[in-house]
């Protein structure tokens, strides 16, 4: 029927092809990455404390490697690594990390740094939990059925919280125990909004800007100590893992330079993370 392609159709198709090329070009400009990079699965609390913004430029200078951090809860970070979507994991839940290793997904675990947890709550402290004993504070919260916001998201913080309840012999249940299933920041937002208690890591707390009338009420208990560990994802399970670059990054983290960089990180003049790879060596 149509012997020759009508000119308008040609013009029209050309416009379409040009648009496709533009879209393709935009995509391509993103895809090309000459820079060597690794993917590190870490936690939201570490990201939100701002540590990586301080640490990664130094790591790049020292090793030449671009480190891309995907921040999730500890549980999600380890799951992501199990799927092979990360080269290195850097989280803070010793029990979950050992399990990860035992399953064969990690090569070796190194202590990197620690910080601590604190319990925050309204300045008026209606349940009277102020003190240095985390178990006693939690007991008072449960007895008073004071509102408590939990992350409930398989994160390192959540795992620690559950361990404390277990040690106190309490099963937290009821209208006063609110599970948000969200990260540390949103959980604190919720606690501030409700005037409730919450368990948080100090790093997130120091850099958290929306405190409302929340203050630190329980701190200093040795049990509140929060250890961070780093592992290379096992290339035996996932051959595409960037073993050399990943190991280089880990080596830098535990080197004296890396440890110093961690110690130098300050928020409002306070040191947030305490390097401890060399402690006890």
């Amino acid at each position, binding site marked *: *029927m*149509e*012997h*020759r392609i*009508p*000119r*308008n*159709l040609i013009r029209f198709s050309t416009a379409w092809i040009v648009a496709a090329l533009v879209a393709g070009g935009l995509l391509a400009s993103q895809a090309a990455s000459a820079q060597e990079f690794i993917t590190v699965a870490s936690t939201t609390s570490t990201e939100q404390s701002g540590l990586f913004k301080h640490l990664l430029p130094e790591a790049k200078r020292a090793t030449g490697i671009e480190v891309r951090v995907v921040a999730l809860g500890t549980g999600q970070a380890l799951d992501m690594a199990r799927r092979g979507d990360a080269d290195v994991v850097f989280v803070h839940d010793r029990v979950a990390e050992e399990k990860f290793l035992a399953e064969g997904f990690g090569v070796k675990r190194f202590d990197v740094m620690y910080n601590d947890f604190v319990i925050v709550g309204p300045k008026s402290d209606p349940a009277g939990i102020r003190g240095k004993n985390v178990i006693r504070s939690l007991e008072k919260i449960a007895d008073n059925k004071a509102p408590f916001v939990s992350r409930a998201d398989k994160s390192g913080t959540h795992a620690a919280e559950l361990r404390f309840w277990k040690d106190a012999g309490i099963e937290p249940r009821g209208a006063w125990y609110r599970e948000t299933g969200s990260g540390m920041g949103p959980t604190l937002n919720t606690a501030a909004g409700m005037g409730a208690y919450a368990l948080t890591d100090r790093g997130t707390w120091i850099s958290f800007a929306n405190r409302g009338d929340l203050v630190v009420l329980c701190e200093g208990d040795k049990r509140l100590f929060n250890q961070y560990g780093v592992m290379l994802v096992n290339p035996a399970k996932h051959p595409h893992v960037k073993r050399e670059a990943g190991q280089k990054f880990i080596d830098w983290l535990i080197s004296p330079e890396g440890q110093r960089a961690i110690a130098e990180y300050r928020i409002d003049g306070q040191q947030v993370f305490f390097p401890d790879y060399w402690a006890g060596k």
Partner: protein
Amino acid sequence: MAERLFPVDARDVTVRVGGHEALRGANLHLDGRGRIVILGANGAGKSVLLRVLHGLMAPTAGAITWAGSERRPNQQAMVFQRPVMLRRTAIANIEYAMAVNGTGHSEAELRAREAIEHVGLANVAQRQARALSGGEQQRIALARAWALRPRLLYLDEPTASLDPTAAAEVERIVGRIYAAGTAVVMTTHNLGLARRFADEIVFLHEGRIVERTPADRFFREPASNEARWFLQGELPWNTASPAI
């Protein structure tokens, strides 16, 4: 690859539209000679018949063939009561019609220019077609149909939406198209136009073709009662029979 168009043959065609029989048992044979005008009251089925002949509407029952084939051939064009223009210039609308029918670009340009001059609108060729007046758009529609060099041109109430001057101009143009060798089948309400233009009248009443008569005889002495009532203006606006 000129397909054969004539005879256009409608046999026992019935068309149901929305649960109502708009056309019933229509039999019509067109051999391409003469100017045919289809008359009838509103709702008599004129537009439906035209669309069936043109291949725009499929019969619910019965058959329509062109030169014995059920495949609708290309050498026919239609002008509707309200012209539909694309959002382009007047001349681009004419070129479009030829482009989609496989005409090469330079030839299409040439024929479009010719056609738009034939309808006297060369001065508005570069204006947006939709910005033209109703009468001008209808003339562009005619130019578009003409440029296709159809062997048969259908017109569905071509002057119904136009003022008398525009209507007269359209009538003149259709006359020229016929003179150039295209067969014409037109529906209209306009009895004056029908009288001036038609060689044959096909009269429809309530979906049936009631008579087909040479035009001068039809207007003097129609064969059917319904036609007589229609001409006397006694057929009501819808197609119910008049009370006697």
